[in-house]
């Protein structure tokens, strides 16, 4: 299990992580979501022992990970760079990592490599960005560590290759309880691969939950209220639904049709609007991307200022 306890990470005077607490159970596929600069990559680097926290603890299976060979050997980190292996051939890169990770499986490596048909003896500098990404992913999987950390995992991969890589990850998770932590701005892919996720913003965790729970706890409500007797539309404002047991993240309407993003379970949300006797009340499930946008909008992270300009 991975645990971050009141972890603080600072870069000079800038606080990247501000006392966060996070638990990631073994065998889960965990997605790290967040705005740019929220601290996603910082968490991954803390977990892989690259960064040393200023305060708090970063534990892998109960052991502090920084400068700890035992803990670090359980983790394989794939960052968002692809230039560091320029001088290597795939074979050389494989041999490089094989020495450090005792569970490295040639069989897994060969099997995955044959699927994506990467050449063994060509230098990675001749590879495309996507091929480099594929190369390091299959090495990461072949290392057979307990934890695989991927920063912008699918960056540079073509759609077909994304599917293949995702399948590789899922297979590994199913086969050997691999814990995968993925940071990505591509929420669709997180949605497809991960079962749990955390949303970060400005160094703090907004939430950390099962993705289905997240999706079930936030709804887009499309509601039409009956008109007045004179035929005009009834005007409701957000304050009309205050203290109603739900948390309204977004509120807008076009004539009599209201679009409301509300946090709360489905029954509670329906119960809030029922007294107004809506003509139409429909709860539409939100995508992870929409949840991301609306959650951060509440925190003032939106594009409205830019639109106004």
């Amino acid at each position: 299990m991975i645990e971050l306890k009141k972890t603080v990470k600072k870069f000079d005077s800038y606080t990247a992580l501000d006392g966060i607490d996070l638990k990631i159970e073994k065998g889960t596929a965990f997605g790290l979501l967040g705005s740019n600069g929220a601290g996603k990559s910082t968490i991954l680097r803390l977990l892989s022992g690259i960064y040393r926290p200023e305060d708090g603890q970063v534990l892998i299976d109960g052991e502090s990970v920084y400068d700890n060979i035992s803990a670090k050997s359980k983790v394989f980190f794939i960052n968002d760079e692809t230039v560091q292996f320029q001088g290597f051939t795939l074979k050389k890169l494989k041999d490089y990592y094989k020495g450090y990770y005792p569970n490295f499986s040639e069989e897994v490596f060969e099997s995955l490599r044959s699927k994506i048909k990467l050449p063994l003896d060509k230098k990675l500098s001749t590879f495309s960005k996507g091929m480099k990404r594929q190369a390091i992913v299959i090495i990461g999987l072949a290392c057979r560590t307990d934890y695989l950390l991927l920063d912008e995992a699918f960056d540079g991969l073509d759609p077909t290759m994304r599917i293949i890589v995702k399948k590789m990850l899922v297979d590994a998770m199913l086969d050997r309880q691999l814990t995968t932590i993925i940071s990505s701005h591509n929420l669709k892919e997180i949605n497809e691969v991960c079962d749990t996720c955390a949303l970060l913003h400005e160094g703090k965790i907004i939430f950390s939950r099962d993705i289905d729970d997240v999706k079930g706890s936030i709804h887009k409500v499309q509601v039409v209220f009956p008109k007045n007797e004179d035929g005009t539309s009834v005007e409701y404002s957000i304050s009309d639904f205050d203290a109603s047991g739900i948390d309204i993240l977004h509120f807008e309407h076009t004539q009599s049709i209201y679009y409301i993003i509300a946090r709360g379970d489905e029954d509670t949300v329906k119960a809030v609007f029922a007294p107004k006797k809506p003509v139409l009340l429909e709860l539409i499930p939100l995508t992870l991307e929409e949840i991301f946008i609306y959650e951060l909008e509440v925190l003032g992270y939106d594009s409205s200022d830019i639109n106004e300009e």
Partner: protein
Amino acid sequence: MTAATSTKNKSYFGRRFATRLAESKKLLIVNFVFSLLGLPLLSLVFVLMEYYDKKNVSIYEVFQPDAYLAIGAVAVFASFAMGLIIALFHFRYLYQKQLVDMNYSLPLSSGQRFFADYLSGLFIYLLPIAVGTVISYGIVLIGEASFGGSAITDMLGHITVSGIIVVVGLIMLYTFAVLGIVFCGSTFEAIFSIVALNVMIPATIACLWIAMIYSSAFGIDESSIIKSLFFTATSPFGAGVFFGDYLSNGEFIVMGNYGAPMATWNYFSWLITAAAVIFIALLAAFLLYKKRKAEDVSKPYVFKSYYYAIITMAVFCILSLFISDGDNIIAGIIICAVGWFLMEVITRRGFKKFWTAGVGFALAVGSVFVICAVCKATDGFGASRKVPSASSISSVEIGSYSYASFGSGISVFTTDDPEVIDQVIKLHEEIIDRHFHSENYEYEQFSEDSSENYFVSDCSFNVSYRMKSGSTLSRRYTINTAMMTDLMKAVYLSDDYAKDASERFFMNMANTSDEWFRSYEDAEKYATKGIVGIEDKLMLTGDALNVKKDDMIQLRDAYRRDLEAMTAEELSSGEVFCYVGDNWVLDSFKETKSVLLSMGYSPDDMDEAYLKNVFSNGNYDPSIYIYSDFELCSHISSNMSDTGNFFSYYGDEDWHLDKEKTMSQFGFAYRNDYYGYGYYEDGQSNYNNGVMFINSRTEYDKADVAQLLGHLTSLVFDERPIAVVTINGSIYCLKDTPENSALLEKVVNG
């Protein structure tokens, strides 16, 4: 469980080491190219030069070796410089951001990562040099064996010993480079840091030394810095200086016992100190490596204090020279300011909070002035008053330029004799006391003003104490020769002198026009015969005896036993029997005299008839000067020339013996001594400038003069002679006895 973990950890280290070697394959190949081109090529050319020399053929008739020597030297230099490149390559993840994750995320502790990277780099650095050295040895051994040469093979031992200095210097260079990189987080700064660290450490020590010298730190001179382990063992540059000192120590470039072979006796102290410096640098590099964070990459300087220390050192070096010079201090400050603010703009990548750069510069300049002021106020941090205690001294090395030899062609004398060490300390204390409390003394330590006309001339006195701690304390002074009296007596009475002088005695016999040996060891090993060159006590006539090696050994051993048996009384009152080469043989040296006589030496009686005969020889035109303040003929100074039965006297110059001073073995001091003779010449030129050059012309009876010369002696200790006589530049004394007074009176007054 623990054992398993330990094995696993070792394997991680080994894996890192191996992967770093594999990554550096190209560097290894380049280094091999340089290393195999460097030393082996130089060795080959030297062997060929020796080969053609042996065949009496000029190598230039066969091929031009200079170009190959230049290529070899450049290749050697390049292979040495590879240490910097390898360090930059092996620790590039400390200044290249894209490599950080790849290196820091691996299951390695920071210690394993650091030492695997350090050691693998060192291996890549030194392996090709080691292979090149082995090949060079092969070339020399096989090459010389093929034509029966041995010039280089004979020196292989010394080459190996000096090679260890080079290896230590290279390890230091590489370690300093790693330390320099650890301080930095960007490419430019990493390169700058390596250069700065390697340059600024020796430069700062040298400038501090110079600041001490120019702040009237009495006794310290520029050359003494190269004898300081503080300088030679603390930087690769210092190691180079030490190496150079070792090369010139007489093993490779021997021309007699010149120079101070500091490197030979200080070798192990240097090795230990340099190893300690390397260890400290490595430890510092590791601790800083552990302390720095992965995210520090891309910062110009991870530890800003280091950057400010380096540029403050640079300011110190520049400004202290201007302060020492005393002129143009403002110009010095301006130069420093330009450099300082330029570096600040580069480091800050702009002008953000630039006023702080000004504050930093003011503090740096202020600190330089404070250091220089403290240096001056404390007489070079107390260095000029420091005399070590006898108990802390292992041995002492003394030398004197005006005392061109200690009587046996030995210009530098080294001993651990307690008596000599005590006398050196006593003299050193007196020198310091005279300097700082000159009001307590009636005459000056030395006179720069020749108008005082002290015949007792100045000489330089160099002393290097070899401390039991392994350090060295070296000082150099100019003193009057009379101050050397007690020390010289102690030297002559020491067993070390007996050993050195008898070996020099043997060398003098062995080195002939046919054969010349670079060292005593060579002479003892290879000489089969020799020539005993004997001169009478006034060096007017000579004799040469051809002898075999057995005779040479017999003579050497007899001379050593005579010296060892010599008493203080014999030394003080002894008369010179003859000279063998540079060695004086006293009348009391029974064994030596016996061997010389048995070999067929027949000394002339130095009587009146003999001397008259010598001076009447038409081919002989002796230059004789008599100086005395003897009461019968005060202020006599004569320039005599041979005019038949008389010597003509040409001057009444105002030379005199200082009444306060006793004499110390003038004869040895001035024999063939350019400086001593030069001093007289200086005095003469003063008169040439218009002051009473020729006052009178008198003629002295040659027989009287000859009789006087027969009573001259070379050895005078603890007494004032009544006259000093120079014959062809060699100086002799006339002791203060009634007989000698009468003789002198007879010469002067007829």
